[in-house]
């Protein structure tokens, strides 16, 4: 009783308590070291291949097969990649056209569909939405052949149109799903207020829903671009010469004498650059979107 009263008025550190506290501190320090260690290990696993690609892109053909990280960096590979005999410039153009067209077509469709799934009532709404998501679970390899046959019959093999159509099928479910989530979070009141203020349904979507769902729409657009930009399988099978996308173009560096690693790496960097900038934009807009939110 007495002891309690003292410890309440003035903390007295007994030797036992001090030892206990020291042990706890030591345990925390050890855990911290372990935590950092694990994180560094995982980070190294992820970063190593990327670092290796970046280094390779700046190596000369002679140093490519050496493990040294001390070499004279050169920009020759980037120059060589754009040598007309590899046709990479054309493939950059192809990929840009395909990816941009896909996004420009996909986003308005996705916004409309997402709005409908979020706000309107229509027969078979639930089932339709589930089926749209289910298409995402079909392994692409299993449907490549029907697509090939279909496009051959339509005379669309090796055209932008064929790749854009396939890419739309790949990205739309994801885009609809993402944007719907953002539209769901918009309070109905804002839309009703706009309707009372005199706006038509389309005007409400354009003036109220789209700006408020902007972070979601932007995110969906960027992810669609990335998915399309990196798409390899369909690009490989549905194109020959005219419409070959950039990732497929890398195959051109697999020569009879072996793969030209330094050019593959340089092309890899060219493919990665837009992703890098998009990642920055997404990050900025996500934090902004969270601050904006709904006004209550």
């Amino acid at each position: 009783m007495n002891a309690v009263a003292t410890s309440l008025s003035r903390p007295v550190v007994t030797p036992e308590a001090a030892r206990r506290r020291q042990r706890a501190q030591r345990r925390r320090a050890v855990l911290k070291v372990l935590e950092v260690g694990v994180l560094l290990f995982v980070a190294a696993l992820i970063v190593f291949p990327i670092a290796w690609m970046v280094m390779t892109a700046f190596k000369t053909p002679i140093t490519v097969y050496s493990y040294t990280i001390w070499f004279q960096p050169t920009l020759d590979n980037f120059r060589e990649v754009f040598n007309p005999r590899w046709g990479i410039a054309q493939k950059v153009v192809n990929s840009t056209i395909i990816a941009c067209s896909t996004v420009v077509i996909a986003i308005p469709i996705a916004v409309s569909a997402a709005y409908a799934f979020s706000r309107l009532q229509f027969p078979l709404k639930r089932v339709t939405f589930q089926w749209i998501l289910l298409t995402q679970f079909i392994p692409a390899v299993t449907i490549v052949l029907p697509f090939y046959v279909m496009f051959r019959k339509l005379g669309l093999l090796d055209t932008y149109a064929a790749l854009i159509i396939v890419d739309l099928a790949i990205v739309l479910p994801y885009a609809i799903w993402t944007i719907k989530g953002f539209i769901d979070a918009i309070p109905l009141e804002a839309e009703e207020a706009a309707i009372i203020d005199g706006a038509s349904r389309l005007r409400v979507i354009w003036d109220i829903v789209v700006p408020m769902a902007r972070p979601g729409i932007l995110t969906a657009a960027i992810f669609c671009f990335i998915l399309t930009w990196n798409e390899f399988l369909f690009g490989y099978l549905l194109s020959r010469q005219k419409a070959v996308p950039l990732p497929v173009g890398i195959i051109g560096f697999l020569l009879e004498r072996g793969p030209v690693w330094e050019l593959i790496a340089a092309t890899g960097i060219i493919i990665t650059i837009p992703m890098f900038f998009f990642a920055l934009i997404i990050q900025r807009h996500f934090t902004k979107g969270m601050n904006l939110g709904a006004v209550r």
Partner: protein
Amino acid sequence: MASIQFNAVTKRWGDFFGVRELDLAVADQEFLVLLGPSGCGKTTTMRMVAGLEEPSSGEIFIGDDLVNDMPPRERDIAMVFQNYGLYPHMSVRDNIGYPLKVRGIPREDAQKRIDAAAAKVELGPFLERKPAQLSGGQRQRVALARSLVRTPRVFLMDEPLSNLDAKLRVTMRAELKHLHHELRITTIYVTHDQMEAMTLATRVGVMNKGVMQQLAPPEEVYNDPANMFVAGFIGSPSMNLVHGDLVDGTFRAEGVAVPGIGGGSRTGVVLGIRPEDLRVVGPGQGVFDAPVYSSELTGESTLVTFNVGGRHVCARGDRHFRCEIGEVVGVAVDPQRAYLFDAATENRIRL
């Protein structure tokens, strides 16, 4: 400006009736408050005027127009929402100006009207801010300014003050009353707060379970309730309702006998008396004696609750009145201020 007319309007979702066979006439320039507990149909009634809800049957007129199939934007109305319904991505100026922009009012004219509306609700210095940078009261003002920037035929307000703190609510209430006096626009105002209803309304419509219980000026709803629901809903603390019988003009229940009620004999009645119509007196000096169950000082008065035959009866006493719990006091009743209801139908028995 316009009158509003409901002819036998029903709104149902499957088996659930939101509003049942409603006949209602709102006069031009009137301030009608729809009052009732949540789910009573008051908001549905208003949303049907707005066009956000379609009636299942019946007719609604605004002015001379049958509006049943008219989209909201053609009805020439404005609405203030409970959560304000602001556009968070637009500045205050653009929020207020949105109804004008949609209607294609020329920019210069629009700016003038935005400034005028903002001045009316004292928002002048905040026009360039975003709604997120405003306080709750300021956001409510933005919603108000947006609704009056266009001088609509009808104002609709859906619990506009319920998200504000108590003090601000009183201030805004006075402002609303003043605005209505100034603009004279027909208004339907939905609330569950009887204080707002009493202070703002030209007439109060008390609703319950989709049915209009009483439609009358505030003092009449308070002094002459049509049935037990209205009697119990209006007033705070609510009216004391005691079940008993009428024997030769005297109301009898366990532990109570109140003479002078009149109306002969009748079984199954409910006697209603407001706390402010009961007086606490010395033991033996009132109509009956009862032990004090609790005594609460509210500041402006003292609420005394008695134990009468196992029921609690509340009286509003003078703010200087003090008593002990368990103390037996007398209760005086003015029979003229007592109401009698039928226990089965809950309707008023008029004597």
